[in-house]
């Protein structure tokens, strides 16, 4: 059994519980073992870096230090956490003053940085380590005729991501491997507004609306996401946004792992599918 270290991030223990459930379900099904990083802490997302640069290095660095105690790559399902962890790793290599600052602070708190694991997004790991061939092999219920758009979001592909920052391909390829019909979508890596949704909703509403409207126009039945933040903004606020801009129609926002699970024959409840604010029952009728 291949083993990875798992950094779920705060959301997956709360608002994105469904993501966590489907991740564990699918990877279990693929005989991949996840070991949760012991005593991990919040990555600081985009908030801590806005307030205090050193703290924003310290938070992810502590996770990297804890993860370094075990073996295996560090797999991260959340785009924001992925970017935070990867960026700190990058900074620690590139900037001597950051590296020394972090190590010095750690030494005063009994923490040592013995090494750093490879930080990889869950999608990256599935594409590169599991591979499309294996995924196709595991599909028992192809998502035939399910029309989707894949929405990678920004921090999966920028600035240090593994896919093309303008026109990411991995999620499209994975969804096609599951049998879904992937529609052309120009906003694959546009931004969902992230935390602006709370502080400046007028900005975030417009961003989400633009994404949802294009998805509807190209005829998508669902939007597939790789990040709990994207999911929350697109799903939970969809009602309010529709009201504000007088839009009709609702689009379910689903995690890619949930569709993987369905295609591989796992049950809806096992994958947390009922937890979407916008129900996906209708869209999924034809496959389940």
């Amino acid at each position: 059994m291949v083993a990875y270290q798992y950094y779920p991030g705060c959301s997956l223990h709360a608002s994105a519980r469904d993501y966590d459930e489907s991740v564990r379900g699918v990877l279990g099904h693929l005989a991949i073992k996840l070991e949760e990083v012991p005593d991990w802490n919040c990555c600081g997302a985009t908030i801590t870096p806005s307030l205090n640069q050193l703290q924003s290095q310290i938070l992810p660095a502590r996770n990297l230090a804890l993860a370094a105690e075990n073996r295996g790559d560090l797999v991260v399902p959340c785009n924001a956490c992925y970017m935070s962890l990867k960026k700190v790793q990058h900074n620690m290599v590139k900037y001597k003053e950051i590296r020394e600052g972090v190590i010095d602070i750690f030494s005063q708190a009994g923490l040592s940085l013995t090494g750093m694991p490879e930080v990889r997004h869950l999608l990256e790991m599935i594409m590169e380590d599991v591979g499309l061939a294996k995924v196709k092999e595991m599909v028992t219920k192809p998502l035939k005729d399910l029309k989707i758009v894949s929405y990678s979001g920004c921090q999966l592909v920028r600035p240090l991501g593994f896919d093309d920052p303008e026109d990411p391909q991995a999620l499209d390829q994975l969804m096609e491997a599951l049998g879904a019909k992937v529609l052309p979508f120009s906003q694959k890596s546009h931004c969902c507004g992230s935390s602006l949704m709370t502080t400046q909703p007028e900005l975030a509403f417009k961003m989400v609306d633009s994404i949802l409207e294009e998805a509807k126009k190209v005829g998508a039945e669902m939007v597939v996401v790789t990040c709990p933040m994207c999911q929350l903004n697109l799903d939970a606020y969809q009602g309010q946004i529709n009201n504000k801009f007088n839009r009709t129609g609702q689009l379910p926002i689903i995690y890619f792992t949930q569709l993987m699970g369905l295609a591989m024959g796992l049950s809806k409840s096992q994958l947390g599918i009922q937890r979407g604010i916008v129900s996906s029952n209708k869209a999924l009728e034809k496959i389940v």
Partner: protein
Amino acid sequence: MSDHKIGVYVCHCGSNINGVVNCAKVTEEIGKIGEVVVAKDYKYMCSDPGQEMIKNDIKEKGLDRVVIAACSPRMHEPTFRRALEGAGLNGYLLEMANIREHVSWVTKDKEEATKKALSLVKGAVKRVKLHEPIEEREVPVTNTTLVLGGGISGIQAALQVAEAGHKVYLIEQKQYIGGNMAKFDKTFPTLDCAACILTPKMVDVGQSPNIELYTSSEVIKVDGYVGNFTVTVREKPRYINHDKCTGCGDCASACIMKNRIPHEFDEGLSKRSAAYIPFPQAVPLKAVIDDGNCLFLTRKKCTLACVKACGAKAINFNQHETIHEFKVGSIILATGFDLFDAKRAPQYGYGRYANVINGLQFERMTNASGPTSGHITLADGTEPKSVAVIHCVGSRDENYNKYCSRVCCMSSVKFAHLVKDHCDAEVYEFYIDMRTFGKGYEEFYNRVQEEGVHFVRGKGAEVAQIDGRLVVIAEDTLLGQYREIPVDMVILNTALEPRVDAEKVAQTLGISRSGDGFFMESHIKLDPVTTTTDGIYLAGCCQSPKDIPDSVAQGSAAAAQSLAIIATGKVKISPISASIDSEQCAGCRICIGLCTYRAIKLNEETLRAEINEAVCKGCGTCAAGCPSGAIRVSHFNDDQLLAQIEGVLA
């Protein structure tokens, strides 16, 4: 102890050196060294009086070695060598210490600079003692020229050499000459019709008794050296007998692949057959068979309708490739450029949105003999009511190419004019800086401004398609506002890039490329036509992006270089070269792979390496790599270098 008589001359270079380095102090200190009989400093050592001073000292004081502390030897070593020779001393008994570029220009602290200058001069003194007199050699020149590339600059160069009465081999990779210019409609700033000015030159090439044209051909090997190259050329089979083909096009009409293959000459905007005439003015005007798409050649399954249709019986599927070998005195490289593939910048929607096109596609669209017969049309056949031109796609951008592609500002303005001229749509130009530097260019820009084109200062950031309409997103930086401007058509004015096979060509010819990937000239200002390999010259966009006037000028300049060595009849070869001590050579072959100029070969009988000193450039790479120390570079041998280091460190 050797008893040399060394003269040391420290140049002030006005205040260039003396402003930082205390030249008098350096002179005084160096004069204390025993073998230095003369030490002088002077305002301009390279001036006539400066040189006279050196010559007189050599004659009067019997100097046998000279050290000059001045600028880079690249600048004035030949000058001072001539001075030594004028006084009867071998020019290689000279050593220059570069106290300008290496000291005064890069050091702020005056004391440090003086100290460093003194060290360098001491090194030079130690070294010059070990210099040996060496002689330059002369070799005869073959009076033929090979031009590689049949675009406008290659054509210009070939015609000029041919007109001077000398033989030219013109090698073109495509089936026809004319290059990119043949695709244009109008040229800036005069709006001359490209075909009208280019076609006569193409015809001249075809008719000149001094030009042997080889199309569908490429250079696969170059041996030899300046004045005496042997070039091997592979001519691919064309499956058409050129003596019989009349260029009538009957084969094209008959071909069962008709209208099924994207036509390269039309940048994919039209479809062609597998047998076709490239374009009506093509030289040579002969049919071409596309071996990648011909059903007979690829699958042996075809009714051979073309063969039946050809009245001249010109089609011959039994042709094979031919290898030619030419002896030439010089080579002119004019291989042109590739257009940046706009798909590499997906944010502009090229390849995704039908009405996003590149500049060459627009050229074909406006060309009267092009796919739309000169009409500017959208994918649905209608005329656009608004057009955006985005500058700098793939240029001036760290993510793609850092350099400015130089022609796009002007061609964009030309596009704007042509749109106004053809269909009077609104035109938006998205630019970073307008660079209209040539003769008549600013005036042309001014004229197009007056035609009512909207110039938006801001780089197009993205092209979106909203409700079926293209939208260019950019900041109007003069307004300081984010803008979304809806248009019907977007023209991406993409970068000019080094050709995809530039590295291969550079290796075949043994020349270098600069950081941007274009072929490297030997001096960017004073020698932009020659390469670092003697006898190989550059013309046109293979050296850097340039417009037609500049390409033509460089083509002529390259021709002049080639004619110059033919006129002299002989070339001088630098005496600095490597030699192999066959007693010490172990035949390990390390040096052979290292030599960029292919000057080293293994003697199969003795199993020792041998150097062709005429080809050797004296770069020293082999000497550094030779593990047994068998290779020695004259004028740069280990003893001399170590002595210099010791002198500097002393």
